């Protein structure tokens, strides 16, 4: 029952303890997780904002834009989908450009 988890099972990575004290590691983890949470909250606000509009004020979405039949709900709904893709792209771009560079330096020093 009290078997150690898989982490201990694998060869204990050298310097796990040291890396926690490393300023670069701390900065990377803090920055990245703050960035991840900000984007998460943004996505939640966008999506649940949309759902709450549907739930409480559906007539706003049904309102026509200009003279045609196209309603406000169309750009808003498609906008939620596009926002999801855009936020994903923003995260991947920053991770590829910034986080990976810092991570590579750490992995070099602590052996991956």
């Amino acid at each position, binding site marked *: *029952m*009290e*078997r150690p*988890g*898989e*982490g*201990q099972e*694998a*060869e*204990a*990575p050298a310097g*796990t303890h040291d*890396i926690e004290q490393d300023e670069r*590691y701390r900065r*990377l*983890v803090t920055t*990245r997780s703050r960035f*991840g*949470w900000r*984007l*998460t909250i943004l*996505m*939640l606000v*966008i*999506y*649940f904002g*949309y*759902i*709450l509009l*549907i*739930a409480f004020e*559906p*007539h706003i*979405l*049904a*309102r*026509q834009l200009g003279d*045609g*039949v*196209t*309603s406000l*709900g*169309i750009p808003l*709904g*498609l906008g*939620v*989908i596009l926002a*999801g*893709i855009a936020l*994903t792209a923003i*995260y*991947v771009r920053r*991770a*590829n450009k910034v986080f*990976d560079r810092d*991570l590579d330096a*750490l*992995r070099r020093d*602590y052996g*991956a």
Partner: protein
Amino acid sequence: MSRFPVTRTALILAALGWPAVAAADALTGQTEQQAANWPAILMFSAFVLATLGITRWAAGRVRSASDFYTAGGGITGFQNGLAIAGDYMSAASFLGISAQIFADGYDGLIYSTGFLVGWPILLFLLAERLRNLGRYTFADVASFRFAQTPVRLFAAFSTLAVVLFYLIAQMVGAGQLIKLLFGLPYTYAVLIVGALMTCYVLFGGMIATTWVQIIKAVMLLGCASFMAFAVLWNFGFSPEALFAKAVEIKTGIAAAGGAAPEEAAAKGLSIMGPGGFIKDPLSAISFGMALMFGTAGLPHILMRFFTVPDAKEARKSVLWATGWIGYFYILTFIIGFGAITFVASNPDYLMPDGTLKGGGNMAAIHLASAIGGDIFLGIVSAVAFATILAVVAGLTLSGASAVSHDIYASVVKKGAANSADELKVSRYTVPVLAILAILLGIAFEKQNVAFMVSLAFALAASGNFPVLVMSLLWDGCTTRGVVVGGFVGVVLALVLTILSPAIWVAVLGHAEPIFPYSSPTIFSMTAAFLTIWLVSFADKSGRATVDRAGYPAQRVRAETGIGAAGASDH
């Protein structure tokens, strides 16, 4: 390409009214067996031959448990993104959402947004950490610093529950669809699906499953693109013109149904805004939560992140998958409105009472026939079938790995199973799951199983998702906390669904539901998070000390990948 002028006379067909078709029963309504559709059968045979060829090729490459579960970790981010899209875009979303739009217009888009927004969350909170910590199943991650046996048992239970409900819904959908499209009896259809998915998974493991999903994704995206393009082309690429025509047709149908002109105009215009989807605000929010967080907790989706070599590729997979899936839902929206303009007023596709020939879910299929004739109808039918195959293969593999990796290797053998035995257990499990799926598929033929897909999402959002988030992100989390909290979430979601209108009233025939809302997630997911927090907080056991002490090392590996076993072949 032929244009279909809409004649008002055709609208008389709708004289008997226009029964609304919910996406929910799009794949589950009873369908009539049709005459054999040869182009569809030929196309589908070509797909089956190609995928069996791939399976044969893959079979030669499946040598270890790692090959079987995760294709040796050798899939690229781009390939995995397509495979995830192929795993996720089910026939229910293609036919169901376009049918929903065909019937009620705008409401279909609400489903589409919900199915998409889980992906960013999965990326921001879980994807890279999953890849850094896990090997084969999400339970590797959830149990990383915890006592193995209880966490693995929870994970296997929730995986099998999600997989079975999802699988039943797919099997019943496949049976109805094939009966309709190919003119095959229901039982044969279910048997064919069961036999093919067994072949792919048993012999080709994750390698074959991945390629089946990739091929299916390309075929489905190609067909949907063509259909959406053809629809827009007919309206000079003006969405406004498309919507205006759809409103005009719906207005005409309402007027033909005896509505006063003003009432009919209002009815026609109502397809441009939210309608019957929302019964009450709480259900709407709860359903939104199930779709969003359930996506991030589906075991067969989470498993796909172990097929790539590292966190960077995992991240790319999500971007590609999100892009393809989002694109697909936008196409589905155009296809749904296109179906209103091409199909809703064309007597060729309607029964005398004004309903669609073959049932409500046929809107996209009839549209295919309207824009591309019998050949394209055959292609789209075959693609719809291929879609189901790719989804059930992924589900079966995920269920088999829960049995062999989480129960057999981790619980029974205490982590000391050798790869060959583990692989053998997986392979015994695949036909067992397939037979179970076939039997359940036959048993549920006449049942409305629409609630099962949303139940699978609710279970994933209430069990796996809270367990993963808390174990990955909270240092105070303990074994007892995740196990008790996870079970509370899953069981509560299950019980509340049984007490909800979808089962208590519609299936069991009681007059009033005990649980009045259509989705349990707002309660069950919240309960899971609170229980995990409370139980962990109060946990003073010796194990709890070990669990908490394990957090820093887990975090280093989750964040950096340092110490992660290289999953690729090199």
